[in-house]
């Protein structure tokens, strides 16, 4: 079964997301900041990354995504956002924001599972 890395500074969100994905049979690793997040990605090589946009800084989720792509890590990224649109970071999939999909918090378990399945299937097709 696929391994999913969740990187978010809110421990409640980490726990809730982990529980949902584990119950669907996925393996989950978590980190609560970008530095640890990068480490677990390098070490565990997950099939999918769920990444919160605002952690220590309002945009360090973006920076981690950019860093991963620079390091030639092309694992699909699902980005968690909350009010980034209002802050003016109105984004689309692009060079600047090299992620595969966005999801706005709060997210229902079905929605999360559906997004995860879609992204994993896409990668499967490519391979």
């Amino acid at each position: 079964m696929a391994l999913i890395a969740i990187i978010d500074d809110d421990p409640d969100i980490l726990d809730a997301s982990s529980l949902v994905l584990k119950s669907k049979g996925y393996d989950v690793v978590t980190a609560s900041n970008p530095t640890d997040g990068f480490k677990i990605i390098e070490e565990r090589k997950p099939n999918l990354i769920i990444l919160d946009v605002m952690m220590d800084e309002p945009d360090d989720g973006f920076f981690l995504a950019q860093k991963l792509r620079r390091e030639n890590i092309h694992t699909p990224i699902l980005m968690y956002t909350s009010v980034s649109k209002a802050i003016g970071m109105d984004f689309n999939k692009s060079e600047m924001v090299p992620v595969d999909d966005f999801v706005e918090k709060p997210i229902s378990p079905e929605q999360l599972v559906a997004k995860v399945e879609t992204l994993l299937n896409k990668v499967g097709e490519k391979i």
Partner: protein
Amino acid sequence: MSDQVKKASILIVDDEKGLRIGTQRLLEDEGYEVETADCGEVGIRLGTSKDFDVAVIDLKMPDIDGLEVLKEIKTTFPNTICFIATAYASYDTAIQSTRLGAYSYIPKPFTPEEFIYQIEQGLKQRQLILEALRLKQEREEKLLELASEKSRLNTIIKAISDGVIVINRNEELVYFNYAALRFLNIRDVKIGEKVVEKLPKEISEIIDKIISKEKILLKTYTTQIEILPNNELIIEAACTPVPNPDGSLAGVVIILSNVTQFKKIELIKSQFVSMVAHELKTPLAAVQGFINIILDDSLGVDKEKEKEYLTRSTVRLRSLTDLVNDLLDISRMELKTKHREIENVNIIETIKSTLQFLEFELKKKEIVVDTNIQENLPIIKADVSEITRLFTNLISNAIKYNKESGSIYIIAHQENSYVSIKIRDTGIGMKPEEKDRLFNEFYRAKNEKTRGISGTGLGLSIVKKIVESYYGKIEVESVFGYGTTFTIHLPINQN
């Protein structure tokens, strides 16, 4: 003539007594005021002492020549109508006397009718001259008034802080003030110059639109332009067509106003709203996440886990309530609608009760509090709830950001007309860049050491607002890894 308010005045200069008396009587009978001179010298004296309407001067007099008298009178009063009376009329003297300003000749001898006729002609001429003079003077006064009106208008336009530019329909500059140049960041323009190329694209496009329209619409077109980058200078340009009296287009007036400050405030406001939204949404998302899990039967959460999630949700909701309360406090403080109860506040008592209130937190982290408070510390006048809030926020920060078994030192003493209170902790301290942002709303130093410390991010901005509302000062010193000291100065003589 008799119905005239002021009688016309006539001077007769003649050495011939009979003629003098004869003409005087004749003219006085006609209602004129007459003075006479029996020689050239007297003639000059009288004629240059008063602006006669008419003077009749004999050409040949024993002492001074009539032409000389004419010249003198004309020099002093150029508008006195002068007749030269002589029996020796000749072409030469006619030319000469006309050159000197004589109105006409009266050949001697003359009949009373002829004489009166000539005088009346002269008076008519005099009236024409005076009327022309009056009109000329009036016109000059009007011109002067107009000129000063124009310069007054100029002064007014130059004095207003908005920029004004007027161009004609050929896009040539007609008028500008210096504020306009400053706002557009252009140095050098000349009246009559094709100025449109020097204007920002946004303005010149509007001007083109106005000028190219067949019918002019008396409508103002506005646009906002960033003149200097990074929101250093943003202006609003309002372009309005100026019509001729016949309704055709005369030109365009452009009013430029500096809206940089409004834009900055707008930006700060929207950033604040975003931050508030984010801070409110984060705990909501967590709580919603837990509820979703509990409600989803397919996830099979057991009773114990369910209880844990509900407890954690309660913690998040409590922090949300704290946040809303802090926001309301800040908003009340900013609007100054908070009703203050100013009374004597004993700072020692306030600190003591705050420490009691925080006893549980202090014991949990095994933190020791050491106080050094000057005896007879002056009483200050303030709202006790605000001063309590101030110490609660500062001391609870000193606990939260302290290490286990750390210390808090509270030192209070009088310093001139202030009470100074130092609150020092032995905690994690701050990096210089964190210190600078400390009092910003929602700023919370985020690093490996602060993880797990909860807060609204509003505590210190509330502290700062309270201190400043009492005209006090707050200072902060910090060494990363060793601790932070906040010093508060509150004025003693409060009304």
